[in-house]
Every structure is written in structure tokens, then in C-alpha cells.
């Protein structure tokens, strides 16, 4: 499943659990409690709060480890080790690529910059899902590394608002099957 699908499932599940908790609280809120019951619920609440803290802390540690142990952004300012490199320049309102045909199955390095204002360099797969992205910022070059698994026509769409020509600022490139692959 793509990252977007995983995020969607996590969010929907979380939202459903939160909604259920609120509904349960709202139902319980309408019920009275004597002083003894209130004292007991306060003590139970404090104990549950500690467990909840522990649960969140565990999720925080495991989640941080899982998402950061292989840092998802490549090192910048180092020599390219990719088999293919593409220089990308964004400008109001077009993309300039040093090549428009790439091979699937081997790493591609995009060196992304802008000639004028900030742009967003986003690569959409042939079925319309974002594969990766980076900002195209004047005076800076961002190094994006990606391996295309499937041949096809990919679309680069500007994702940072850059004026009236923002949405037509897109282009395509071809990913072909690796030679001998």
C-alpha cells in the first residue's frame, strides 16, 4: 500500500476511535454520580491517564524510530552516486529538464532549483499519485533521489503557489524499461 493509503487508514481509524470515545463520554456525562463515585472515577482517571501517557510515549518512540532510522531525505551537497542525473530548473511558469527519458529500476538524482520564485517540484505517477517532491527555491539546489519501479509517462506539477500560471506549470517525462531488463 502506498504511503497515502496507510496514512488514510491510520487517520480514519484514529478519527473513529476518537469519535467513539466522545460519544461514550457524552452518554456518560448525562448520568449523575454521588461523591463516592466521583472520588473513585477521579482515582481511576489518574491511573488511566498514566497508562495513556505510557501508550502515547511508546507510540512516539516506536514511530520516530520507524520513520527516521532511514532518513527519508538524501544527503545534500555530496557527489552523486546515482546512475542517472537530471538537472531541473523551475521558472514562471515552466519546467526545464536536462533529459526527458529515464530508465526504470535504477536510482535517479534530480537537482532541483528555481530561476525566479519558489516552486514545488512534485512527480506524479501515471496513475496520478505523488511519488516524491521537493521545493524548487531560488539560490538553492535540492537533491531528490528516486527509483522508478514502473515505466510510463510521469508528470511534474508545481505544488508551490507561484502566481497566476501556477497550475499550468507542469510537464511530463518518460520512464522506460531498463535496457536488457
Amino acid at each position, binding site marked *: 500500500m502506498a504511503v497515502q493509503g496507510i496514512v488514510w487508514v491510520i487517520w480514519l481509524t484514529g478519527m473513529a476511535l476518537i469519535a467513539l470515545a466522545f460519544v461514550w463520554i457524552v452518554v456518560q456525562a448525562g448520568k449523575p454520580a454521588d461523591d463516592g463515585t466521583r472520588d473513585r472515577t477521579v482515582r481511576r482517571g489518574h491511573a488511566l491517564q498514566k497508562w495513556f501517557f505510557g501508550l502515547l510515549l511508546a507510540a512516539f518512540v516506536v514511530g520516530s524510530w520507524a520513520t527516521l532510522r532511514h532518513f527519508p531525505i538524501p544527503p545534500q551537497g555530496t557527489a552523486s552516486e546515482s546512475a542517472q542525473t537530471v538537472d531541473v530548473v523551475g521558472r514562471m511558469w515552466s519546467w526545464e529538464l536536462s533529459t526527458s527519458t529515464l530508465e526504470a529500476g535504477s536510482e535517479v538524482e534530480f537537482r532541483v532549483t528555481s530561476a525566479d520564485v519558489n516552486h514545488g517540484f512534485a512527480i506524479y505517477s501515471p496513475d496520478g499519485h505523488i511519488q516524491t517532491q521537493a521545493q524548487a527555491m531560488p539560490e*538553492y539546489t535540492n537533491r531528490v533521489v528516486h527509483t522508478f519501479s514502473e515505466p510510463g509517462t510521469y508528470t511534474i506539477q508545481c505544488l508551490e503557489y507561484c502566481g497566476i500560471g501556477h497550475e499550468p506549470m507542469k510537464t511530463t517525462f518518460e520512464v522506460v524499461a531498463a535496457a536488457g531488463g
Partner: protein
Amino acid sequence: MASLTLYPQDERLAGRERTVFNLYLVTALVLVVVLMLVGLTMRLSQATWVALPKNTFFQFLSLHGAGMVGTAVMVTTAGMWFFLRKYVRLHTWAFVTNYVLFMLGVVCILVGIYQGYAALWTYLYPLPVSGMGIWSPASAAWFMIGYLLIGVGQLIFYFDAAAGVIAKHGNLGRAMGWPWLFGGTVDPEHPKTVVAGTSMIIANSLGILAGAVSLVMSLVNLLYPDIKIDPLFTKSLIYWFGHMYINASIYMGVIVIYELLSRYSGKPYPLSRVFLWGWAATTILVLIVFPHHLLMDFAMPHWILVVGQVASWSSGFPVLLVTAWGALTNVYRSNMRWSMPPRWMLLALFGWITGGFAAVLDSTIRVNLVMHNTQWVPGHFHTYLLLGVLAMVLALMYHWIGARRNAPPANSLLDRIGFFVYLIGGLIFVYGFLDGGRRGVARRMAEHWPEWVVTDQIASVGAVLVVLAMTYFALRILAGMFGGSPPESSRVPNLADPAG
């Protein structure tokens, strides 16, 4: 500890104070409805149901973004003032000055947009000076000067509040209860409002100052285009300011829940050490969380990007463990008699948590690689603004109209229907955004790819319901504030008393 009396004497307003507070509320109601209509028009245009010229769309987007954020902070500032003045001395002139400068700022922003400015709330360097004939540097200058005026007004309010807090508590740290973090007996009478208010005085003042630096730098660039500024540094300042500013609306807005919820539940909601730790952490986290807006700027030192993710995830701890937990346990088995204010407060907590959860997911670098600048972003912040912050504000407003008449809180059939329509419409509306994010729909586009339009159409249906409900609430609250004459004396309900 906040009083359990529904309408305590020390909250009554008269004369100039009452007029100014009403001005804040009326202005907020008018702006919210008008800016919602602007937002609805944009959504209908993306849905291909309304034709909107492209540049008008981006002018509307600039107006809607800047306007809604400004309004949210303005009206939650009024809420903070309303409650904080009970505990520390606040000068009315500072509250008035903030309002006057806010309105002058609004005029400047409108002039800028009327002249064609369409570089959005972010004024991201060097776009304001690169209008390509669509807008002029002068229009961008009007917009930025408007921001500066609003920021100066807010700082005057905060500095006056800081002076009042220091005069009462000695220093800001003691006001936030820091001496009790590691030991000692926490004074349960120490007001939560002072803790939360002081936190925002510190954090949002620093954020506004960062914004002022970026604005002055950008204005210099507008006047003297040969003077270049660093785009990454400027972007960092802009997002430090922008993120802090909108966060301040939530953290000032939650004061409404701290003050009012226990009155409607009838159960005490005392201060605790956990609460103080939560706010100490919040003060730091809101200041260092902004790099999550720069995760796709790979030139940033990578440790700063890690801080952005870690601080974003950490921000969930105080919200869930302190505010949400405390509020929900407060209403649990409270024999609550539901009316509009507590209904809004529970919705506000729900909107804050679910919107915040979506934000936490997107602040994960790996996720941001495929969801940055998609509709997921407006999806998360519309969730916590529409269902969170605005719900807090409506809780205060409904409480206020009840206090004016010294009457039981509003709970008519029309109010309940309006609430239900707002909730359903709001959920449909944010679903349109979030589902768009999942599909990779880009934010900030006047026209969408044909396969994306279905998400715009779903959101538009939700937006229509929200606007209808909000228009009703605005009229209902205005009638409550000014209609008829308040009774000279009537029974002040005390919900802590079972006979109430």
C-alpha cells in the same frame, strides 16, 4: 480555580469595556460569515459550478487565508481578555488600540487586494515583487503594512497583559506555575487562564516579532529590489510567525473551555502539576515546531527537519493528556444538562484532536514527501479551525448572550438543528479536503485536474451547509447581544447546584 457560578459578578461588563468587547464579537461574526462566503465561492469554482476568473480566485485566496487567521486571533484575543482581566489588571486602552490597529490593518489588506495583490497570506519572497503585471509592488506593500499594523496591535495587547501578569505574580515563570513543576503544593486557586494566557504572551510575541522582521525585509525588497534577501531564511521567519500565530488562536481559545466547562458540568476543574507541565511544554513546542513547514526544503540542516517532526509529534501530548483528558474527565458522570455552550466546547475538543492528528501525520517527513502542499494541509487546519477554534468562540458567544439576559443557556430546537447542520456540513467539508490529500490533489489551484473535481464537489456541499448554519448562528447571536432589553434582575442559574 474557575468559579462554578454560571455568570459570576466579576465577569460583568459595563460602559466602554462592554462596547469594545461587543465590537470584537460583532466584527468577528461579520468577518467569519463574509470570509466563509469567499471560501465557498472558491470551492464552488474548483467544483466547476461557478466561474471565477483565475486572478480573482487567488485574490480571494489571499483574502480568505489572511482574513480567517487574523479574525481567529482577534476574537480569541477578546476571549483571553474577557477572562484574564478577572485575575490581572488589563488596561482598556490597550484592548481598544489592538482593535483599532486590527481594523486599520484590515483596511490596508483590502486596499492591497483591491489593487490586485494575490501572493497569498505567505508573501513568500520573492513572489510579492514578482507579480508579472498581475499585481504591483505597491499592492504588496499595502498588504504587508496591514499585517504590520495588526501585529503591532497584538503586541500592544500582549505587552499590557504581560505587565499585568508580572505586577500580580512577580514574573512570567511564576505566573505559569514553574516553581511547582518539580515540587511544592500546587495552589488549586491559581487560574488556568493566567497559565495559558502567559504562555501565549511569550510564544506569540516572539512569533509576531519574527513576522515583523520578515515583513520589514520584504518591504525593503519591494522598495529596493536590488537589495536581495535569503529566500530560505525569510521563509523560515514567515512560517515561524504564521504557524505560531494560528496556533495562538487555539491556545487562547481553549481558555474558554478552562473557564466555562466546569460551570456547565457543575464539577470542579482544579489546577494540577500535570497541567503546568503541559503548558510549560506547549510554550516551548509551539516555538520550535515550525520547521515542519520546511520539510521539503532539503537545503535546511537535516537536524532542524528532525526537530520539526519530533516537536510536532510531541505537541500532541499536552493536547491529549492535559486539556482533552482533563476536560473529558470533568464532564464524565457530571449529570450534564446539555445546552449550546457545552455542546460547542465538546465539539471544539473533538475538532482540535482530530485536526491535530491529521497535522501530526503530515509532519512526518516520510509522509510529507507525498502529501506536502496537497489538500491534506487545508484539510487538517480547517478541521481544527472550523470544528475547533470557531466552536470555542461560539461557546463563548452563546455564553455571553446568556449572561446578558442572566438567563439559562440557549438550547432551542433551531440552535440544536443549526449545530447538527454545522457538524455534518463541517465533516463533509473537511472530508473533501482530506480525501483530496490522499489522492494527491494540489492545494492553492484555481482549476483542478478533471479527476480531482469530485473532491471539490463533495467539499462544496459541506461548505454550503456550514455557511447556512454559521449565518444562522451569527444572526442568532447578534439578536441575543442587542435584541430586546436585558432583564434588570432574574435568577442567576447555578449549574453546580442540582436544583440549578
